[in-house]
C-alpha cells in the first residue's frame, strides 16, 4: 500500500444479485489496493463476499441479474467500464486466477498440456509446438516432476497437489501482473497446503507479480500476505499490514477468527472460542453494525449505528469498522490474550457503560466518532 500508484485499486465496489428470494448484497462498498510485488490477503467466512469481489474484478459476475457499481482500476483503467472483449483480453493474460478445487477446475476431458497451451494461444501468437514447449516449461516451473510425460496426461491422473500446481502453471502461462488465488489450499492436505503456499510466494518473488490470496484461514495469509483485509457480510471490517493486524487486531470479528485458531504455544487446557451464530443473510441484513448479532461486545447503540471503516488515530494504515473506542478495544484484546473469557469482558464492558465512573477500567465507549 506504500507505492504511489497501485496496480489494482478497488473503490467502493458494490455487487448485488437479483434472485427469486430478493436482492443479495454480496459486496457492499469494498475498497482495497494492491501494488506490484505485494500480497494482499482477503480473509472471511463463506458468503462474506471475498470470492465475488475477485470474480467481479475478472468480469466473471457480469450478467442480467447483477448490479455492479464502484470502480476497479487496473493500471488506471476501470475494468467495470471495459467492453466484454477488452476485459477478456486482460483475463488470463494480465490478471489470472486460480480456484479452490483443482479437480473440478480443470476440464476432465482435455490433457493438462492442452489446457495450458490453450491459455497461451488465447493471448499470444504462437505455434502449437511452441505453446506445448512453454507448457512443459511451466509445469517444470511449478515443480511437477517429469513434465515431458505429465504434459500429455489428463487431470484425473494427477494428485490433488499436482492439479493445483497445474492450475498455478496455467495462471502463470502469460506472466500475469496480478494473480488472484481463491482459497488455493482449502481442498488440499495440510502438508501440500504449505508446499503450494511457498510455491506461490516463491513464484511471486521471482516474477514480481502482485498477488491477492483469498482464504477463510488466517493461518494461510499469516505466512505470505503483506497486507490483510478481513471481510464480513460483504464489507471490509478491518485492514492493516499483516504484522500489525496480528499484533493488534482491532475488530471483534478478527478477534473471533484469531481465537478460533488452535495455537501450539497456548496452554493445553485453554479452550478454543468459536464465533457464535452464523453469518447474516445478505438479503435481509441486520441493521446497525452487521456483526452486532454475533458480537459479544455489542451495546444498544450498535444495533442502530452503522460503523465506517476508519483509520486508527495511532496508525493510518490500520483501518477498522467498529463502534467501540480504540481504548476499549485494546483492553478487551489484552484481556482475551490473557485468557479472560469473552463473557467476563463483556460484563465489564456493560458495567462501565452503566456507570461512567467505572470507565477508567475498561475505557469510555459510547458511540464512537465513526457513527457521525
Amino acid at each position, binding site marked *: 500500500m506504500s507505492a504511489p500508484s497501485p496496480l489494482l485499486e478497488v473503490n467502493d465496489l458494490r455487487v448485488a444479485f437479483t434472485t427469486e428470494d430478493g436482492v443479495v448484497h454480496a459486496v457492499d462498498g469494498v475498497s482495497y489496493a494492491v501494488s506490484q510485488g505485494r500480497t494482499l490477503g482477503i480473509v472471511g467466512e463463506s458468503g462474506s463476499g471475498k470470492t465475488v469481489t475477485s470474480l467481479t474484478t475478472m468480469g*466473471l459476475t457480469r450478467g442480467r441479474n447483477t448490479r455492479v457499481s464502484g470502480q476497479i482500476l487496473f493500471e488506471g483503467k476501470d475494468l467495470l467500464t471495459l467492453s466484454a472483449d477488452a476485459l*477478456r483480453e486482460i483475463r488470463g493474460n494480465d490478471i489470472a486466477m486460480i480456484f479452490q478445487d483443482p479437480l473440478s477446475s480443470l476440464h476432465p476431458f482435455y490433457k493438462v498440456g492442452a489446457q495450458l497451451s490453450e491459455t497461451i494461444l488465447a493471448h499470444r501468437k504462437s505455434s502449437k509446438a511452441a505453446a506445448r514447449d512453454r507448457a512443459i516449461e511451466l509445469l517444470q516451473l511449478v515443480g511437477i516432476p517429469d513434465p515431458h510425460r505429465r504434459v500429455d496426461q489428463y487431470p484425473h491422473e494427477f494428485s490433488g497437489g499436482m492439479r493445483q500446481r497445474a492450475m498455478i502453471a*496455467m495462471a502463470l502461462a502469460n506472466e500475469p501482473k496480478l494473480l488472484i488465488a481463491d482459497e488455493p489450499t482449502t481442498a488440499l492436505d495440510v502438508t501440500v497446503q504449505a508446499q503450494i503456499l511457498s510455491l506461490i510466494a516463491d513464484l511471486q518473488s521471482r516474477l514480481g507479480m502482485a498477488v491477492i490470496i483469498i482464504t477463510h484461514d488466517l493461518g494461510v495469509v499469516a505466512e505470505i500476505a503483506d497486507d490483510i483485509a478481513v471481510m464480513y457480510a460483504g464489507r471490509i471490517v478491518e485492514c492493516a499490514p499483516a504484522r500489525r493486524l496480528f499484533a493488534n487486531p482491532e475488530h471483534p470479528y478478527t478477534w473471533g477468527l484469531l481465537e478460533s485458531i488452535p495455537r501450539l504455544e497456548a496452554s493445553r487446557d485453554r479452550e478454543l472460542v468459536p464465533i457464535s451464530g452464523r453469518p447474516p443473510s445478505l438479503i435481509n441484513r441486520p441493521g446497525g453494525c452487521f456483526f452486532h448479532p454475533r458480537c459479544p461486545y455489542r451495546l444498544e447503540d450498535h444495533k442502530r449505528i452503522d460503523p465506517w471503516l476508519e483509520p486508527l488515530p495511532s496508525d493510518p494504515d490500520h483501518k477498522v469498522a467498529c463502534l467501540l473506542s480504540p481504548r476499549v478495544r485494546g483492553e478487551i484484546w489484552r484481556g482475551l490474550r490473557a485468557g479472560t473469557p469473552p463473557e467476563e469482558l463483556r460484563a465489564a464492558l456493560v458495567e462501565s457503560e452503566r456507570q461512567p465512573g467505572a470507565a477508567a477500567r475498561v475505557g469510555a465507549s459510547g458511540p464512537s466518532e465513526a457513527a457521525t
Partner: protein
Amino acid sequence: MTKYIIRRLLWVIVLLFLVTLITFIVFYLLPSADPATLRAGRQPSPALVAQIRHNLGLDKPWYDQYYRYMKALVLHFDFGYSYQSNESVRTLIFSRLPATISLTVGAAVIWLVIGIAVGTVSAVRRRSKFDRAAMGTALVAISAPVYWLGLLSLFLFAQDIGKIPLFPGAGSYVPLSQDPAKWFTSLIMPWFVLAASFAAIYARLLRANLIEVMSEDYIRTARAKGLPERRVIFKHGIRAAITPIVTAAGLDIGVLLGGAILTETVFNIPGVGRLAYDSILAGDLPMIQGTVLLGAFFIVMANLVVDVLYAFIDPRVRYS
C-alpha cells in the same frame, strides 16, 4: 481394450442365441395363427393342412424344429425359407436392409443436427423467447405419435393427396442405386417425421446437460483464461455435455436399424420393419425369427459401439 471387446462380442453371441430361443418359445406357446392353415387356401381338407404341416416341419416337436433351425443358422448362415413366399429369409432381409438404413441414417443426421443446434442455443440463451418457443415445440414433437405425424404430413404435403403437394407421397421409395434424386425426395418426409420426436428429445437432453455443465468450475476456469465465449461454449461446454447424446444416439440408431416399423408402414417403405410387420400378420415364423434376430443384433452391437465410444469421449473411462 481389445480383450474387453472380444469378451463383449462373445456375450453378443450368447445373447443372440437366447433371443432366438425366446422367439421360438413365444411363437409356440402363444396362440398364434396356424401357418399351415394360413397357407392351405380356402376351406382346405385336413389332409392338405397335415401335408403342409409336414412339409414345413411343423409336425415335429418344437425343440427338434429349433435344433434344425439353429444348425442351419450356425453351419450355413441359413435363416430358413419364408413360409409365405418360399424365398430365402436371408436374401429377403438383405434386400430390405438398404431402405431401412437409408431411412434411419438420414433421420439420424436430421435429428442430431436439429437437436444439438436447438439444445445448444436454448441452453445458452436460457429463458429467451427462442428457448421458450423451442421447448414448447419440443413438447409437441415428443407427444405426437409418429404414425399420426406421418399421416398428417402425407395429408398436407404428399404430391398425390396433399393440400400443398410438395413431396412424393407414400409408396414412392426408390432405391439409392436406382435413382439418387428420387431416393432423396421420396425420403424427405419420412426422415423428418421419424426425426421429429428424436430431435425434440435430444434438444431437451442437451439443453439440460449444457445448462448444468456451464455452471461447472472448469467452465469458470475457461472463462478466467480469457477464452472467447464461443470457444468456452463449444470446446469446453458442449464437449462435456455431449456424452449422453452419444449414448442415446447409438442406442436409438441401433433400435431403428432393426426396422422403423411405424414410419415404414405409414410411408409404405419396403424396409425391414415393414417386413417384420407383414410376417407377423402372416404367422411366418422363419421371417419373424430373422427380423427379430436382426433387430437384436443391431441393438447389442449398438450397445457395444456406445460403450467403446465412451472410452474415447471420456478419458476417465477405461475398460479392462
